């Protein structure tokens, strides 16, 4: 993993993009990383577009500004693609991860000439299948972990299992569904194969998708 | 409460025997009504009980604790003008926690009484008072109501009676003094549904004020005591006449004596022959202009308002 990975989340107030960013910080912390997880605050209410950020690093993070040139952009709600320039400043060798049932090919048209890598995952479908409700942030968290490769699958799922066990101590029945959502999203996240310049960071993810598409 | 209450067999002799809790040497005006009232309220404290006295900025405060001279025999805190309620709620909460944490012994009994003029109580300190009453602190808030901002030189307050001549409602060629009726703060605090609210003033044997002070102090939870204490300077009457002025306020039903115990309204005194309001207004220079020929209808208006409020009070007490 490169020295500091910077991630920018786009979602809508109430969808849990902030929570996902904090959960990612959480799990990265538990795997020994230095982390930052913070939302961009305003008086916005339910439904308004919101932004959240992660920095994940091997050393203590001192920068306290927002992220303008992220390595990764995560879009929790694809309807934002019409209103928000989600790819602004996104690094050339970075990637965007979008919650959508559509293929990356279809999505690319909405990205204002963005040429970098696109990963898609149908977080809604996964969430409804595993949790019976639309909690897109849980699958998006797993997809993001898979793509930006700050930790490996086993490490990630292990830590999430542990934190769910703590978080849902009073209703363990929901743990299984949440874990299933994470695993499914981690494995199902798909890269647009029209692009070839894949950084070593994501060989794993890519290889995995080769298998699936075969 | 109720147990060994002194007022059960009240006698001026035994009450005046009690050690004085407001020392002489304070700088209040000669003949000040507030200090007479404060002394009476403090006599409501049982001997051996400690007290912390709070005080809003005002005549009483600037005159009773002028460094290094304090007239207070008990612990005393003055903070600012508008926050006597909040300040004493802090003190009372500290008492609770020091007891809880064992830093005060079981036998160390403290009572909490704060004094504020009508400025610090009806007006600028109203929010702080309302908050403290609503939160249910075990304290007594005593308003010494002299019907204007006397400390700053007799400006009108929401406790100033209609038509009073004050420095911000002067009577003049085209003015008859204050335009508005006074705010009925006793009722407003009663509507907070606190355990005890009472209205009193200085009476011949001070039994009414003593009983209400003692009841307020020894009632658990918040209590409010509204005490009319005339100000010779602001009301412009002959200084020595104060007790007569108070009697007339009660006999004309301008200042009825009542209390509200756990929401029950009780009328403590009903004049056999309710005196006309002129009797109360006449000796006071601040109402002099009302007695100019042609102003009879102003006095009639004043009487009308007094009657209305008196009937309203009788109704509440009859409920």
């Amino acid at each position: 993993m490169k020295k500091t990975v910077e991630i920018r989340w786009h979602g809508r107030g109430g969808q849990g993009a902030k929570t996902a960013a904090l959960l990612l910080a959480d799990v990265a912390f538990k795997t020994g990383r230095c982390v930052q997880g913070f939302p961009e605050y305003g008086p916005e209410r339910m439904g308004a577009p919101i932004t959240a950020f992660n920095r994940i690093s091997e050393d203590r993070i001192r920068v306290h500004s927002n992220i303008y040139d992220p390595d990764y952009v995560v879009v929790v709600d694809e309807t934002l693609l019409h209103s928000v320039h989600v790819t602004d400043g996104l690094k050339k060798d970075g990637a965007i991860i979008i919650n959508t049932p559509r293929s990356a090919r279809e999505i690319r048209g909405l990205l204002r000439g963005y040429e970098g890598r696109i990963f898609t995952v149908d977080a809604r479908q996964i969430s409804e299948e595993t949790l019976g409700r639309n909690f897109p942030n849980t699958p998006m968290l797993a997809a993001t972990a898979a793509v930006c490769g700050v930790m490996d699958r086993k490490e990630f799922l292990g830590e999430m299992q542990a934190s769910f066990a703590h978080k849902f101590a009073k209703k363990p029945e929901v743990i299984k569904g949440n874990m299933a959502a994470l695993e499914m999203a981690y494995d199902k996240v798909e890269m647009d194969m029209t692009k070839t310049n894949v950084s070593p960071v994501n060989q794993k993810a890519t290889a995995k998708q080769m298998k699936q598409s075969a | 409460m109720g147990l060994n209450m002194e007022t059960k067999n009240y006698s001026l002799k035994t009450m005046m025997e009690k050690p004085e809790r407001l020392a002489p040497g304070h700088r209040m005006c000669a003949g000040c009504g507030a200090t007479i009232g404060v002394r009476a309220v403090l006599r409501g404290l049982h001997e051996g009980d400690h007290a912390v006295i709070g005080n809003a900025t005002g005549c009483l405060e600037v005159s009773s604790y002028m460094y290094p001279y304090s007239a207070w025999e008990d612990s005393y805190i003055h903070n600012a003008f508008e926050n006597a309620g909040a300040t004493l709620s802090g003190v009372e909460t500290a008492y609770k926690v020091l007891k809880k944490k064992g830093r005060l012994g079981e036998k160390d009994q403290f009572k909490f009484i704060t004094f504020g003029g009508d400025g610090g109580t009806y007006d600028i300190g109203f929010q702080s008072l309302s908050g403290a009453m609503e939160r249910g602190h075990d304290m007594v808030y005593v308003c010494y109501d002299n019907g204007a901002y006397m400390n700053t030189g007799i400006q009108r307050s929401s406790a100033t009676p209609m038509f009073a001549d004050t420095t911000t409602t002067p009577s003049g060629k085209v003015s008859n003094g204050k335009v508005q009726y006074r705010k009925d703060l006793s009722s407003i605090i009663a509507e907070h549904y606190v355990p005890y609210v009472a209205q009193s003033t200085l009476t011949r044997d001070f039994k009414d004020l003593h009983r209400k002070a003692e009841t307020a102090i020894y009632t658990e939870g918040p209590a409010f005591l509204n005490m009319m204490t005339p100000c010779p300077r602001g009301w412009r009457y002959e200084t020595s006449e104060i007790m007569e002025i108070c009697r007339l306020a009660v006999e004309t039903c301008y200042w009825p004596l009542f209390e509200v115990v756990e929401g029950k309204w009780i009328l403590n005194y009903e004049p056999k022959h309710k005196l006309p309001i002129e009797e109360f207004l006449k000796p006071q220079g601040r109402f002099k202009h009302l007695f100019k020929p042609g102003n009879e209808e102003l006095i009639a208006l004043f009487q009308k308002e007094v009657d209305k409020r008196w009937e309203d009070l009788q109704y509440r007490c009859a409920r």
Partner: protein
Amino acid sequence: MRTDITNINERSPYTDLTEGLQLYAGGTSRLFMTGEWRTNTPVLDQDKCRQCLLCAPVCPDSSIPVRGGKRLDFDYDHCKGCGICAKVCPFGAITMKEGIEA
């Protein structure tokens, strides 16, 4: 360290004042003689006084001490001469005399 205000006066250096001007004592105002404000002075006629004590509670300056159920003479160190006591006395036992002397 309780406060002895006899050591605090208008010539005391700032280091001698109490912290935050707090007083660790009560009733220190007794040392301030408001009796000097007086222009009229109440005089008690012991023979006329029936010890009803109606005068004691009306004194704004706590200057009518009561001991053993009886009022003593005025505390002229503090009495400001307002005349309320004379007014409330039912027996004419208190008269107001011009000047500061009883």
